[in-house]
């Protein structure tokens, strides 16, 4: 026991070092970027420096915040529905072979249609409101969740299944007792991929047409050559995606920690 604890500590200190590394590299990149812009005297509408971006971010903060709220709520609604859909479909396809055989190919086909085609179509069909955006996000997000969850639900341990059946457990009971908990890490792997798609999906669908949102604001900034604002907009998108990713990680840790009886 003592030995394992000390090695754990060692690993932890190594982790801290590794965690600092990306920040160090990022910082270095930002400094180089600023220096390049200053030394080569690049016009800010072509490539703004980090300082310009921060200035734009500060100047436009109120407007950006209102657009952020719209995009974030679209993403969360879409992602939330996709999670429910993905979990239900995963359980159905993991449990019933027939359902998996029937629907799996259709789901794959649904992913081969470029979202970029669907966004204007959805705008024509459903207008410029919330619905088409949420639909695009669901389409982008449910697939990785469903696939990851289904695949991990399909992993079987024949010995375990036999033992449970000798104990008198029904197929559904052993599915609940063993398969679903064992598939949770797989589900969360899917959720982590999907959550980064959610903001992206919102932005893409806003591009085509929206009253508010980071996507439409981005196109406005672009057409008026406010490149620094565009960069600030992108920065927010990156931060939002990272934040949501982190949130999923935290929820995963909470849930997996609590699965102890």
């Amino acid at each position, binding site marked *: 026991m003592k030995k394992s604890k000390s090695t754990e500590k060692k690993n932890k200190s190594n982790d801290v070092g590794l965690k600092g590394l990306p920040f160090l590299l990022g910082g270095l990149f930002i400094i180089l970027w600023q220096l390049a812009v200053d030394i080569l005297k690049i016009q800010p509408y072509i490539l703004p420096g980090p300082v310009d971006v921060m200035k734009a971010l500060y100047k436009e903060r109120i407007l950006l915040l209102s657009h952020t709220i719209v995009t974030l709520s679209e993403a969360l609604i879409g992602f939330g529905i996709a999670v429910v859909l993905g979990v239900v479909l995963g359980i159905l396809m993991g449990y019933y072979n027939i359902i998996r055989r029937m629907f799996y190919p259709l789901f794959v086909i649904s992913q081969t249609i470029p979202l970029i085609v669907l966004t204007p179509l959805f705008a024509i069909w459903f207008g410029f409101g919330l619905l088409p955006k949420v639909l695009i996000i669901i389409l982008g997000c449910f697939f990785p969740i469903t696939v990851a969850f289904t695949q991990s639900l399909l992993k079987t*341990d024949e*010995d375990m299944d*036999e*033992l449970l059946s*000798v104990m*008198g457990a029904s197929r559904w009971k052993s599915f609940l*007792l063993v398969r679903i908990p064992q598939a949770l890490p797989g589900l969360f792997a899917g959720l982590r991929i999907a959550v980064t798609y959610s903001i992206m999906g919102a932005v893409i669908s806003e591009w085509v047409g929206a009253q508010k949102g980071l996507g439409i604001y981005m196109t406005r900034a672009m057409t008026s050559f406010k490149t620094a604002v565009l960069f600030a907009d992108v920065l927010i998108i990156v931060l939002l995606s990272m934040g949501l990713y982190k949130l999923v990680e935290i929820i995963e840790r909470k849930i997996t920690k609590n699965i102890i009886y």
Partner: protein
Amino acid sequence: MNKIIEITQLNKVYYGPEDREREGLGVLSDINMRVDDNEFVSLLGPSGCGKSTLLKLIAGLDNDYEGSISLRGKNPKNTRIPVCYMLQKDCLIPWRTMISNILLPIEIRKGNIKTAKENLKSLIAEFGLAGFENYRPSQLSGGMRQRAALLRTYLMDGEIMLLDEPFGALDEITRMQMQDWLISVWEKHRKTVLFVTHDIDEAIYLSDRVIAMSNIPGTIVGEICIDFKRPRTRDMLLCTQFNEYKRSLMGLLTND
């Protein structure tokens, strides 16, 4: 003595996925055997002789065979008859604590967990697991995991324990300790055991009777009664009588 298991003229043929129409591979051929109440019987044979398959048939996991199996006069093909069943793999659920793993059979048959927990205390001590109730399987040693799995098997509410090489995955020394421990616990409770193994010494040391099997197709080539007194001791493994048993079993197993 009352017989608890009786198997007569049992044949099992395995058909691969492609040779349904072809002859198939004989797994078990003309098996006739019985196990009596409070008896410790070992099925001894090389790997692939179908001894694990036979256990599965008795447990009701596979109904694709000819002949008859009767468990207390009932056929496991038609009705589910509770048995205690254990594999070489401990099959403990990794995210459950040891105690909730052990209580799993009671949880599945919707028994009262609380009273079961109370009644379990002395058994947990007897199985050498006291103090580790809330540990996860990964935190326990191989021997402890196997003992926990055995205790879970014991709680499976059957009249007979079907043990499929329960110590097969353990190292030699741990296995010896587990055998000593199992024999002492068994001599106290005397619950009927059908024990599958490919270890001759283990079979002689533990059993009242050893049934020897040969492979392809699996048949019973003979059986011997072990007349050592109980409680058994390790010293019995060193006496001439032990070697006589071993010689006759080796004769049965290699004579094909």
